[in-house]
């Protein structure tokens, strides 16, 4: 009996899991400078909100439909921080931001109190990160997670507002093999300067990187003892990061941080779960076609006499449900010749 469908058996399907990585470079010029509009003294790719609790960075002026949201920036400090003070600008909001991020990323202690960010990831004691910059990457960039061991970010940490100097790179050194799992938000690791060797006392950490959450938490102490800023393009420079965090708006602190941003690189990870269908065409299958051009007055155009071998050409593979409804389709990049002398196994992978 002639047939155009072939059933897929248990040995014709399998499932696989593949990790796909993309390299993400975020240069300092995207974060500040490229889309600076001098006439209005604004960065057109930076979106600010009336509540002033964070600012969003886009890869293009955000009013354009071509713009992609790439990350958010904000700052916060713990209520137990030395910087906390009722006279500070947006003091409550800075504490709220810190607590919210800590609640999500660090979780609660045995008494139900929000834990603070820990410098070495050991919640039992040690130094806490009480004042932090938060870089919340968009899922568009991080996909399923940031690839462990791929992250680095470089800031200028000294110099003048016109000529920033002393770039320092913070990276998740060693995280490809060693990382922490005691966060409610998934895996994370500690950010070190490129030259630092993790010290046994756990004091060399400069921040935390949460891989699945896509959040980098940087301690403000990386800018300690140096002027900080400028807070706007060639505008004023804060005397210190402490002065900035207490005496300015959150968005001003974010802007100052962006102006010190040199570059940031990481790879993201997409977990592809795939089903592979092995579509096997045996020697005596799929050698004829129902293509209207295959016949001329019902006669096969690829044959002169009946003893000639039939031939057909595959360009498309259709995957069907039980009721013959086409649910997936695959195309080959060039026609595949099928005749009784050959067999084909077409491996069709559907990713989910």
């Amino acid at each position, binding site marked *: *009996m*002639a*047939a*155009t*469908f*072939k*059933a897929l058996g248990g040995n014709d*399907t399998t499932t696989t899991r593949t990790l796909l990585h993309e390299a993400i470079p975020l240069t300092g010029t995207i974060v500040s400078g490229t889309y600076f509009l001098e006439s209005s003294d604004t960065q057109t790719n930076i979106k600010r909100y009336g509540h002033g609790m964070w600012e969003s960075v886009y890869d293009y002026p955000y009013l354009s439909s071509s713009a992609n949201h790439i990350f958010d920036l904000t700052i916060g400090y713990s209520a137990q921080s030395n910087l906390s003070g009722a006279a500070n600008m947006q003091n409550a909001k800075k504490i709220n931001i810190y607590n919210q991020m800590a609640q999500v990323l660090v979780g609660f202690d045995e008494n139900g109190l929000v834990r603070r960010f820990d410098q070495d990831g050991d919640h039992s004691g040690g130094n806490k990160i009480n004042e932090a910059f938060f870089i919340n990457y968009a899922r568009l960039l991080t996909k399923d997670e940031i690839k462990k061991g791929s992250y680095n970010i470089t800031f200028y940490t000294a110099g003048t507002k016109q000529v920033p100097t002393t770039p320092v790179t913070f990276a998740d050194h060693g995280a490809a093999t060693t990382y922490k799992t005691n966060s409610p938000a998934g895996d994370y690791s500690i950010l070190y300067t490129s030259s630092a060797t993790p010290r046994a006392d756990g004091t060399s950490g400069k921040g935390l990187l949460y891989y699945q959450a896509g959040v980098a938490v940087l301690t403000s102490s990386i800018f300690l003892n140096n002027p900080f800023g400028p807070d706007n393009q060639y505008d004023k420079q804060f005397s210190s990061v402490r002065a900035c965090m207490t005496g300015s708006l959150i968005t001003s602190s974010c802007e100052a941080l962006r102006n010190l941003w040199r570059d940031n690189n990481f790879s993201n990870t997409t977990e592809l779960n795939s*089903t592979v269908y092995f*579509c096997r*065409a045996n020697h005596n299958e*799929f*050698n*004829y*076609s*129902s*293509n*209207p*051009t*295959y*016949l001329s*007055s*019902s*006669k096969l*155009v*690829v044959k002169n006499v*009946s*003893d000639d071998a*039939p*031939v*057909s*050409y*595959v*360009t*498309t*593979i*259709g*995957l*069907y*449900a*039980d*009721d*013959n*409804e*086409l*649910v*997936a*389709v*695959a*195309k*080959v*990049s*060039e*026609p*595949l010749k099928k005749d*009784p002398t050959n067999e084909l196994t*077409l*491996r*069709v992978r*559907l990713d989910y």
Partner: protein
Amino acid sequence: MAFLDNSGDIILDAVLTDTGRARLARADGSFRIAKFALGDDEIDYGLYDKTAASSADYDLQIMQTPILEAFTNNSSLLKSRLLSVPRTNILFLPILKLNTKFARTKMNTSAVDPTSVSNMFIVAADLDTTDNVPTGIGTEIDGLMEGAQPDKEEQSHIRIDQGLDTDELAPRAPLDDDLRDETYVVEIDNRLGRIVGKNGESPRASFVDDDQIASYVISAPMVSNNGNRDLVGVDGSSQTIQGPRGTILEFRIASSVDLQGSDFLFTKLGKTAQTYVIGGQNVTGLGTIDTHVRVSGMNTGYRIDVPVQFVKKLS
């Protein structure tokens, strides 16, 4: 829908169709891939050159055919499927062909406005439409099916014959069993109509896809054996297939409830304020929708499109 890069290794470009995604979203188990088929939509076998000096050159042009990338409209893909027949000595394959040789299987040609309804079957959407000329279009025109009363005997139906349409083989022998289509798949826009048998059969659609295309799997009694052995061309011949004949599919089209009760589909999909010219008289104020009904042989995969016009006297 770009072409696929064919400069290097052979690559496979796979996507879920819109129906596949819809079934996946339903999460009711209907997304289950159970079978596959191979297609050759882009191939023009007319380029196969059997006169080339070397057999390696027979398909030189075919192998250079650019392939379009996969797209997601399920009803636009796999229009021609490859066929598995174990034997390799087949020189002829059956086709499907409209048989318009009977008074009740003719298509409309010139009884109505020939500029708009040439070579089509006509489905009158409701009873008002078939009132006498010039109020309506009447019932005495070729190719007319009364969509609101499809079980009425005196009206047209669509007949499709299967067989080897060649004068190299006489019709005395029947078509080989392994090439006969005993079952057909008929697809029609579910918003417009449904398939019914000419003897009152009312098959149910197997499924309706996301584009509202309903598929009917039809077999006996709407499919019958063609035992006629007359030569085509002799006086009184009612056959359209010249060689060995297989089966006959006969059906009518009933108009949908939406089409009968409302005019909006004519505004949305068709034309309004149309005029038929019947017997020299103008029938005005008609709405028309041009569509086609697709018929495929379940075994052989051969398919034809039957042109159909739905017509309604608009209110």
